[in-house]
């Protein structure tokens, strides 16, 4: 069970991710963030919940839909917006943009614009931990499209063979860009297939933050106990288009949720409802939003004011 303080802290983080992405939607049209954005509205509870359970020094790896992961491990809105605005003060000095965000000093080692690409990197990090007799787990986040890549299966196989301490986190929104799972898979159930591997496989509701936290905690202790990898399958509803800031329900490949249906799958609304039920006043909860929005506005202002990299930076950091 989550303590009340923990719930509030997690709510702040969840809301930070949501409001950051809403701010991107607000400011994107000014064309100053020249980077493709893959917004994760609806999926924030997964990164926030899983990272909450990881030890501070754990390495994490992600995808191009990485804003929640970045903010969950760094809590750094200044660097985040600086990078999206292409400024020198971003963690990648503007060379990363949204799709390659990383902060090795916070454990976020790499994210990638090519589906499934960081999965074996995470396995390599877990191998490095095993090599050093370090029991810290590694976590890698990827979408349900990634499991169609050969490298996913190669990576799972190797991790299971070597009994590595790695948590595979599948963020399942049922869509690979615009294609539904039923249009992509020649097997009945991903979970059934994975159960043939020597790893622990658990499915849970990725839209509910307390559920994600509980599932992750259970999984991490199972991984330690059984000395084998874990596969956490967390489903969620992707509200927006694959890349960009718009809803795309009019495109016809899926239908939009009613307001009531959205409330059922919106992790922010769900946690907020829980906190309200526990007695938090809407004024207290609104105050959290206000303070977050002030912080985001300040980060955006700093990012806009920051310098672009100097011309010499073009040739820097190719080789060590």
């Amino acid at each position, binding site marked *: 069970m989550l303590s009340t303080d923990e719930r509030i802290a997690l709510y702040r983080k969840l809301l930070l991710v949501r409001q950051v992405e809403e701010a991107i939607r607000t400011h994107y049209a000014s064309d100053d963030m020249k980077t493709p954005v893959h917004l994760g509205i609806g999926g924030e509870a997964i990164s926030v919940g899983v990272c909450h359970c990881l030890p501070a020094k754990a*390495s994490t*790896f992600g995808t191009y839909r990485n804003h929640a992961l970045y903010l969950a491990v760094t809590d750094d809105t200044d660097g985040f917006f600086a990078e999206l605005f292409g400024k020198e003060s*971003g*963690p*990648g*000095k503007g*060379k*990363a943009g949204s799709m*390659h965000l*990383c*902060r*090795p*000093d916070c454990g976020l*080692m*790499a994210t*990638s614009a*090519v589906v499934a*690409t*960081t*999965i*074996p*990197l*995470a*396995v*390599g*990090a*877990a*191998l*490095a*931990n095993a*090599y050093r007799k370090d029991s810290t787990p590694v976590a890698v986040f990827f979408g349900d499209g990634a499991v169609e890549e*050969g*490298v996913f299966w*190669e*990576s799972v*196989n*190797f991790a299971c*063979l070597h009994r590595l301490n790695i948590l595979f986190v599948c963020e399942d929104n049922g869509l690979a860009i615009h294609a539904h799972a039923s249009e992509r898979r020649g097997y009945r159930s991903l979970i059934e297939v994975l159960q043939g591997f020597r790893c622990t496989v658990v499915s849970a509701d990725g839209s509910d933050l307390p559920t994600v936290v509980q599932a992750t905690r259970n999984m991490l202790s199972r991984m330690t106990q059984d000395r084998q990898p874990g596969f956490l399958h967390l489903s969620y509803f992707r509200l927006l288009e694959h890349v960009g800031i718009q809803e795309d329900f009019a495109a016809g490949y899926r239908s939009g949720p009613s307001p009531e249906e959205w409330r059922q799958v919106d992790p922010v609304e769900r946690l907020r409802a829980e906190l309200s039920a526990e007695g938090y006043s809407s004024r207290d909860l609104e105050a959290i939003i206000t303070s977050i929005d002030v912080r985001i506005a300040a980060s955006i202002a700093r990012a806009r004011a920051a310098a672009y990299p100097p011309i010499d930076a073009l040739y*820097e*950091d*190719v*080789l*060590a």
Partner: protein
Amino acid sequence: MKSLMTYREALATGMAKEMDIDTRVFVFGLDVPDHKRIFGSTKGLVEKFGSERCFGTPLSEDAMTGVAIGAALSGLRPVHVHIRADFLLLGMNQIANVMSSLRYTSGGALKIPLVIRAVIGRGWGQGAQHSKSLHGVFAHFPGIKVVLPTTPQDAYGTLRAAIRDDNPVVILEHRWLYDIEGDVDDEADIALSGPAILRKGQSVTVVCTSWMNIEALKAADVLAKRGIELEVIDIRTITPLDERLVVESVNRTGRCIVADYDWLFCGFAAELAARLSHRCFATLQQPVERIGFAPVPCPTTRPLENLFYPSAVNIIRTVERMLELPHADLSQETFYSYEQRFKGPF
């Protein structure tokens, strides 16, 4: 201390030295610890360092390349070995999309001290999928160092330097060089060295990669009988490329052949020829000539394979054409024939 050893022994010895010095160094790949030990180049390692530091893998080049990168950016120093360079194409997403650019996109926060060793196959019908060198392909991507050691000394020094380098280094080793013997000085500088002059001469500069050095040295022997002296330069390191020594040589000889162990189109030979045309424009007496693979997939049958690969004879005929000399009778010359040393199957 100097000792005489083969290229394969130099690789195994250099590897063991670095594993001794640095516990972060490990070696892995398909067949690495099996009874054949990558043609002997990983001999003795599993016995000395155990299966945690020397191990085989599933047939998963894509993921294993990613695993190597992940281990490298986590602070280890992996050496990932492939028995054929062609197999690296299965790991190309990791090589081209990750290994080459991760340091750059991390704003310099990440280092990838990773060595990829791969063997270039040839002969006994290696054919279209066991014969590529690929150095031009890897060198095309910024952020990757590419080296082709030719001598046992260079095999030894290059491998050790690559392991100590904080960048990804691809080492490409020609299968036939494994039998070459030479002195290895373990006190020589450990460095990814630039070009080396293998033979001094003033008639024509021949710049070579990998096995083409052996062919060029043979061509030089034959041409020397007619008073023509080739200057043979082993380029050794493709990237980062330091062509100063070559420029100096071409400025002396006024003539240059780039003999590359690869296809010519969009390849390293084109790159070097372009640079020399620019930098030696005033001293070149003729256009830079290029010698390489025939522009076809590598055929299996021996007669066609002979035509596919560039040889000492191609170099001799090119020199004759450049110097407007009649074709010499080469019928009494003995050229390298792999059946004398290499009877396959692999």
